[in-house]
């Protein structure tokens, strides 16, 4: 085939042109073999820039196009589209990155230009071996998987289900509701959290389009956008969900007491339990780690007392396979463990609490029915709330946790409400009341008599009888001071879930430097990820309050719905291909394929690649004993890769035999 190649060099304003000598580069490229036209232009990606390419393709009858500009993840698709519009197969195009990989990493004009020359000539030599490829169209499965049943997941589920599409919610805990279910009231409006959350939870349970899979975890994810295959393991509840009516007779009789995780360990629950009274589904669960039957082989009292015979000690983990078009991750957040900051004494002094513990303490459904009683039985009269514990701190998390100022002030308000004669201090660095009505709430709390002191607490020490002394520097007075208090509340930071790393690996979503899921673009694609068809919502993407989490849940739902309603999606044809005439049927490729795309065709006694499943990873290609002529990777053939290398590597002294 006679190649006619066009090369286009972008200035990217001054991004490239200030370091790479584009004129020199253009002159150099013009001399390369098969290059018929080489141009440079200030913004290749702009409309006029693309027009130049389109016009040239027609005018010079180009067979291949090379664009040297930014990263192909940025504008690769833009130029592919331009080629396609001009009638050129988009896979006859190759992009060279001379911005991120050249101009942005050096100031040396000479060396940068030399490197750019090498990279462009490599690409020119590569496209000479390009073949036209056809995009594969695949239908999109009309359902969505949501991982995590907190407020963000619930919101997304309801939006999708109400538009008539199927939703699966996979929740790790026995009930949905997430962190919001643990809260007493929400700032700044002071609505009761349960009152606004539980109707939504019930709606989730009753919506025919939503399948709720609680007490379950995602174990395996395969497939690609539009066609994900997700393996979920449903842990045994040892209670038959279809029979349990949630009467609670079993829990009354259960002899084994366990610290209640939902109440932050402030009181005990039984080994057979419902997470909280409004749990959805309203089913009991046996905690096999603490159940006497599982630990010592005795008891089975719950089984005897259950009126519907729902207790079933023989339940086994159940594997569920879901086929979905898209996935929304809404796994929420964990709270920073303040016991690592030894000087605050959390875990050593019983009257030092975390914010969430106090949240349970003031909750009407909490361990004390909303009465503020300390661990030693006293009612506190002086309370100090320390802000920014674990956040805005170089030693722990550098980011601002966003919600702590507001929840600390909400707790101060609730304490003042319950104990009007108490004195509440807030030790803050800065008050960050950024949302609608938040500043007004700050003012309201101040007016209620809460004392705000600017300064971070240095130390909490016990002075005897459970009383605590908080030492801090009042940075407005410029003096070191101390307060003797009955109770210290640490406003702990929000941090990524412990299992976020594991899920990120499963769903192939990158994490940011703090361990939260990384969105595709912080401003323009806040709920998308680089993993196509996987969206994120809520605090797993960064600390977020309830309004923001709900907004993100809805945003992720609309992204997911857009994907489902498109019906079909294009799949990159960059996949493996078998030359049936050469394949010996050794089946090595089948054992190496991580996606199950390579199968053995008994009739022809050769391997076959299932186009839709192949992800183009190239593992099979590398494993094929008879080499690249038998099993080859479209778009990354040996000729193409070696062609590229040939131009980059120094010329060998001995003349090598040309490949292909």
């Amino acid at each position, binding site marked *: 085939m006679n190649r006619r190649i066009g090369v286009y060099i972008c200035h990217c304003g001054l991004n490239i042109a200030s370091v790479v000598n584009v004129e020199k580069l253009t002159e150099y490229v013009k001399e390369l073999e098969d290059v018929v036209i080489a141009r440079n232009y200030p913004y290749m990606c702009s409309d006029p820039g693309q027009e130049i390419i389109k016009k040239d393709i027609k005018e010079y009858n180009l067979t291949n196009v090379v664009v040297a500009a930014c990263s192909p993840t940025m504008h690769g698709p833009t130029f592919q589209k331009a080629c396609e519009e001009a009638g050129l197969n988009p896979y006859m195009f190759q992009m060279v990155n001379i911005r991120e990989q050249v101009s942005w990493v050096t100031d040396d004009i000479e060396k940068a230009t030399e490197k750019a020359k090498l990279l462009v000539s490599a690409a020119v030599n590569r496209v000479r071996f390009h073949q036209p490829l056809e995009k594969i169209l695949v239908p999109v499965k009309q359902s969505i998987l949501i991982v995590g049943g907190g407020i963000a997941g619930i919101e997304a589920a309801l939006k999708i289900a109400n538009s008539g599409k199927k939703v699966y919610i996979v929740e790790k805990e026995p009930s949905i509701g997430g962190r919001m279910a643990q809260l007493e009231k929400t700032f700044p409006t002071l609505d009761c959290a349960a009152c606004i959350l539980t109707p939504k939870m019930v709606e989730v349970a009753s919506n025919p389009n939503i399948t709720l899979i609680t007490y379950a975890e995602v174990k395996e994810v395969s497939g690609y956008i539009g066609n994900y295959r997700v393996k979920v393991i449903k842990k045994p509840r040892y209670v038959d969900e279809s029979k349990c009516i949630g009467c609670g007779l079993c829990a009354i009789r259960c002899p084994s007491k366990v610290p209640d995780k939902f109440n932050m360990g402030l009181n005990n629950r039984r080994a057979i339990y419902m997470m909280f009274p409004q749990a959805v589904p309203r089913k009991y669960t046996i905690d096999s780690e603490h159940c006497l039957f599982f630990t010592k082989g005795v008891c089975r009292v719950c089984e005897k007392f259950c009126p519907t015979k729902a207790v079933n000690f023989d339940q086994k983990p159940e594997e569920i396979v879901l086929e979905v078009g898209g996935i929304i991750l809404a796994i929420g957040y964990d709270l920073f463990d303040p016991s690592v900051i*030894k*000087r605050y*004494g959390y875990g*050593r002094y019983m009257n030092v609490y975390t914010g969430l513990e106090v949240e349970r303490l003031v909750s009407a459904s909490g361990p004390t029915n909303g009465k503020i009683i300390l661990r030693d039985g006293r009612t506190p009269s002086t309370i100090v709330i320390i802000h920014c514990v674990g956040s805005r701190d170089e030693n722990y998390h550098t980011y601002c946790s966003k919600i702590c100022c507001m929840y600390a002030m909400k707790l101060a308000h609730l304490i003042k409400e319950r104990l009007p004669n108490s004195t509440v201090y807030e030790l803050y660095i800065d008050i960050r009341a950024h949302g609608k009505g938040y500043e007004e709430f700050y003012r309201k709390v101040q007016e209620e008599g809460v004392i705000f002191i600017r300064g971070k607490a240095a*130390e909490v*020490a*016990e*002075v*005897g009888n459970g009383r605590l002394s908080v030492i801090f520097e009042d940075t407005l007075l410029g003096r070191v001071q101390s307060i003797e208090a009955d109770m210290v509340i640490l406003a702990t930071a929000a941090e990524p879930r412990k299992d976020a790393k594991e899920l990120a690996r499963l769903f192939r979503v990158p994490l940011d430097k703090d361990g939260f899921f990384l969105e595709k673009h912080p401003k323009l694609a806040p709920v998308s990820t680089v993993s196509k068809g996987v969206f994120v919502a809520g605090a797993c993407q960064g600390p977020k309050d309830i309004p923001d989490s709900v907004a993100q849940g809805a945003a992720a739902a609309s992204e997911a719905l857009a994907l489902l309603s498109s019906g079909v999606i294009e799949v990159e044809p960059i996949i493996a291909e078998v030359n049936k005439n050469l394949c010996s049927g050794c089946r090595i490729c089948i054992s190496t394929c991580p996606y199950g795309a390579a199968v053995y065709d008994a009739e022809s006694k050769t391997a076959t690649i299932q186009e839709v499943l192949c992800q183009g990873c190239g593992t099979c290609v590398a494993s094929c004993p008879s080499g690249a002529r038998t099993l080859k990777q479209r778009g990354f053939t040996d000729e193409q890769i070696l062609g590229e290398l040939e131009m980059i590597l120094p010329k060998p002294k001995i003349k090598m035999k040309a490949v292909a």
Partner: protein
Amino acid sequence: MFKKNVSYYPGCSCSKSGLARYYGSSSLAVLKKIGVNVSEIEDWNCCGSNLYRTIDENKAYLLGARNLAKALEMGLPEILILCPACFLSLKRTLTEVFTNSTLLIEVKKKYSVFGNRTSSIPNVRHIIDFLVNDIGEDVFKKNVEKKLDGLKVAPYYGCQITRPYGLFDDPEFPTSMERIFSWIGANPIDSPLKTKCCGGMLTITNEGEVLPMIKKILESYIRLGAECIVTACPLCHLNLEIAKMKIKRTVKEISNIPIMYFTQLIGLSFNLPFNELGITKEIVEHLNKKIIVTASLRGGKNE
């Protein structure tokens, strides 16, 4: 029996003529009893502590490096140090020598043993670290002859043992000494001021500033019910003793509380001779209600 060979750097204060000589002698007695073979570094010199560094940093490091070189020449790269100031100073010297290439060249030129390929890198250890992490609970329990039944011991770490590096314990809230106390049967009390400043050298120049500081520490220990205060630093010990002497007329409880080195306390539980531990009649009298009486009931040797 536990067997180990280490070199030992006493430094000025813990040497035989130093102010904290009984910290030195009691440590050696304890180590001997445990079965650690301790060899004092031959012809050791000043660690190059704080004051040197303010004048000529490199010379201070060279001074410290000479001690390390001596230990290497003896073939005992594991160096045991008692005084936290010496420990910090030699640790810093070690870190600096191996991260600053010009200094390393100079050190190698002066002390050829550093350049020797076969010699290992010196390992600077504080005695608390060594006792807690190398010796451990089992060996301790085997050697205890008199359990210090429930004696309420207040540990006082001071600033330099774990800070700034925090090499073997939490820099802000160390608990190593408490672990040792529980192994010998004593009852460590949780003291929030255990890492607060003892005043350091300021006692000499600005006593008025230091005394209230230490008074606060001593009073807090008394309030928490301490029966003796235990330190691991010659300077802390000295400052606490000076303050105790000066305040005891005004605060009576303070005069009754003995201040001792943690190795002296271990020595008591190991039933070592008082003269080696440097336990004076005064301390014995203060503690007699607790230790000596219970020990004599069990047939201890020293009464």
